[in-house]
């Protein structure tokens, strides 16, 4: 069978699996709680599935592997290490979040500080951050499929756009079900490709020996170009961003029990560790076996490198893993962005569900918002924007500014006291990154410091 036909058939099979596994897009008995947080009834297996699949974005699979291929272990120190640190923070917010019964993190923030403006501000930030982050997913998958099938990027991106739309229309229950399939594809694809490449390279020790001989700097955790401080800051910003990321917070809210939420964090960390180990093997082995593959973008380089380095079937499994990663992250972000737009920013949408007809109209509006935001992200993915990891850095840092302090630092919230500090922090971050050209992760710390200072300052001066 021609390989091109096999690739298309595999994508077709993925489409069918997604269509029939994702379940119903319009649930018979749905309301906003079911749509946004799965009715707080997700059990351990779908929870782990959706948590890990959401975690593994195209930035993780593709961006990290290519950074590792180019610079070695500094990629781990600068990104994955930070992400894993963020994971360590999460158990501390499980009880706090679950006690609120909120449907979104902006709502939790607004309710906690008794400030509607805070909810709106964080919702606007989330819509911006996630729309841009979705660009990564569309671009990564679009470029890979366009290269594989030799078609236009926009046609390939339209495929992932439709996958994402379909799975998001059903709300979190549908996202969770499709994510379980996506996780199986990510795990299978990465481990199959890593095993294949490692077999050809000999062993991990042999790979290390070869790197030590050819490019010993790649084995150092700190970059020569950046000081350890910059790498640490970068790592920290990724960590804070992940720790405060509403994608994971919402999943912790969705668990049926608090025990399931803790269980999800425990099992997910093992699977995430296995996938990162696989990606690390892939990046380093590829460097040893096929050094010097370069291309105009990370996505193009990734496709070229692994088309060259892997036999057709493992390569196809790896590309399918990137597709699954893109779909699973994008649908989660799309759902949150739509929630922010329709629920958090709309003053008429109260906390409680209305009658069936009102609820039906409200959820239909959400689906329109999903289509609108996905279309905007698809359009943006066709423009020349910064690299995959850089867009991710902007997004995570904005998220960290909005939620890190209230989630992890502030123990006794003071009513209406956070809006000014948060606004000032976001403005400072914008000024430092856009006008002074400082890296987003470096600008994050002063922004967070300002937010903390402005929040805690009046308390010290108080009677």
């Amino acid at each position, binding site marked *: 069978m*021609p390989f*091109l036909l096999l690739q298309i058939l595999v994508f077709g099979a993925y489409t069918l699996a997604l269509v029939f596994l994702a379940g119903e897009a319009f649930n018979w008995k749905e309301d906003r709680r079911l749509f946004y947080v799965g009715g707080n009834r997700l059990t351990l297996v779908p929870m782990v599935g959706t948590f890990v699949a959401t975690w593994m974005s195209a930035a993780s699979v593709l961006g990290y592997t290519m950074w590792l291929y180019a610079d070695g272990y500094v990629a781990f120190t600068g990104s994955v290490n930070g992400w894993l640190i963020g994971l360590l923070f999460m158990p501390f917010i499980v009880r706090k979040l679950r006690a609120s019964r909120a449907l979104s993190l902006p709502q939790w923030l607004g309710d906690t500080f008794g400030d509607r403006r805070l909810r709106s501000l964080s919702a606007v930030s989330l819509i911006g951050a996630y729309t841009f982050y979705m660009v990564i997913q569309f671009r990564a998958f679009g470029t890979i499929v366009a290269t594989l099938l030799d078609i236009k990027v926009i*046609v390939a991106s339209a495929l992932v756009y439709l996958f994402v739309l379909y799975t998001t229309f059903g709300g979190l229950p549908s996202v969770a079900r499709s994510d379980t399939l996506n996780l199986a594809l990510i795990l299978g694809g990465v481990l199959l490709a890593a095993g294949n490449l490692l077999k050809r390279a000999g062993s991990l020790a042999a790979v290390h020996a070869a790197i030590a001989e050819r490019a010993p700097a790649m084995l150092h955790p700190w970059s020569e170009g950046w000081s350890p401080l910059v790498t640490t800051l970068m790592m920290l910003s990724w960590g804070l961003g992940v720790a405060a990321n509403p994608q994971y917070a919402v999943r912790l809210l969705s668990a049926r029990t608090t025990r399931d939420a803790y269980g999800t964090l425990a099992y997910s960390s093992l699977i995430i560790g296995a996938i990162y180990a696989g990606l690390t093997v892939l990046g380093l082995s590829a460097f040893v076996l096929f050094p010097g593959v370069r291309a105009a973008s990370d996505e193009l380089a990734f496709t070229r490198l692994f088309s060259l380095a892997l036999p057709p079937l493992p390569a196809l499994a790896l590309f399918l893993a990137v597709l699954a990663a893109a779909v699973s992250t994008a649908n989660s972000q799309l759902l949150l962005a739509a929630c922010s737009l329709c629920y958090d920013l709309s003053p008429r949408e109260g906390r409680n569900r209305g009658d069936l007809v009102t609820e039906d109209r409200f959820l239909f509006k959400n689906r329109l918002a999903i289509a609108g935001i996905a279309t905007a992200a698809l359009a943006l993915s066709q423009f020349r924007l910064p690299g995959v990891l850089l867009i991710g850095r902007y997004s995570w840092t904005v998220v960290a500014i909005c939620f890190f302090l209230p989630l992890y630092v502030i123990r006794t919230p003071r009513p209406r006291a956070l809006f000014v500090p948060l606004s000032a922090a976001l403005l400072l971050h914008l000024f430092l990154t856009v006008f002074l050209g400082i890296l987003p992760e470096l600008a994050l710390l002063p922004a967070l410091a300002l937010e903390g200072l402005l929040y805690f300052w009046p308390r010290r001066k108080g009677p």
Partner: protein
Amino acid sequence: MRSSRPLSIETRIKVILTAIAMALTALTVGTALTQGFFERAGEARLLLETARSAASGLPADHVEPLLKRLKPFWKEAPRAQGAETVRSADGQEWRFVLDRAAIWNALVYRQRYVLVAGLIGLLVAVELAVFLAYSLTRPMKILAWGCEQMRSGRWVRLPTLSRTPYELEALNEAFNGMVDDLKRWQEFQKQAARVERLAALGSVAAAVAHEVKNPLASMRIHLDLLRGRLPEKEKDCLEILGAELDRLNQTVSQLLSYARPRPPLFGPVDVRDLLSWTASMTSTPCRLAAVNLSWAVEEGCPPIWGDGPQLKQVMLNLVLNAVAAQPNGGSVRLEAQRSGQNVALRVEDAGPGIPAELLERIFDPFFTTRPDGTGLGLSIVHRIVEGHGGRIDVESTGQKTVFSVTLPTAPPGKKES
């Protein structure tokens, strides 16, 4: 044991449309590929024939470049069975077989956009299926919700949905019609039950009243006879006995007037006279209870078409009720105004109001919350107003109670020009 959950409409439509999309894609792409394959194979054979005939007149060294043009669709197969042969003029032979895989690869590459379009078409079909299922199931979902609400005792009307197929709209309208009919039927049943209850009560009350009234009259006569024979200091007891006998007599009279009401004698009743009479008749109880009574009649208010004495009884009962509701003082306001072809009489007091759960029962005979009440005053009012073809409504909050009596200004069938 519960059987497995049947498939939803959405899943069924999704399966059908997906199958159609897949079949169409397979048919289109399959036809295109098969046709392309045979065309390519035919072209390749033609090329081979051309090369073969050209090679037969050329020496071997001139044939070699010619044979390169046979690739990629022909591959050399020195020992293959059924291979095509090309022979040069000097007798050298080459064997070729058709490279089907190469032809397929080229074809698939050429048709790749069609294949991807098929995949996109499949996804679009699925998403259309989802929305088609939604537009079909939405009215049914709302209908099911309406039925559930009705089952749990809540009356609901289904909203009109925009862009709904007319068949489903008819279903919606039928449900709403059914709700309206059921409501009317429930109202009718309530009314019928009330009438039946009142009739039964009336019969008993009339019989009892009739039996009690004669002995009461006799007791009253003998009490008056006793008055002249008893010493002065015992007369207080007679006064009390007399008062109690009068009260008993009044109750019995009320019972009789309730049970066997006199048919009204209709005629024009001046509203100003009616309210003025009511105010003067109730001035003493109002003064004793420190209740401020005021009244007003709208300019040009037409006379009521009714029975004067009966309407006086209505107003008297309502005002005395209002006074009794304010034992520690308060106010009563009487108003009359035109309301279309009727006159609306309002009696408003500033009492503590009637609890919502009692409002439905206040017109029932013998229902009272006062220890000294007969529970007949408002029943009589209700019966008289109904006998006049009018309506009585009551609104009560924690701060006030308003009785509104609406009575016609002309006999039935006679409309104001």
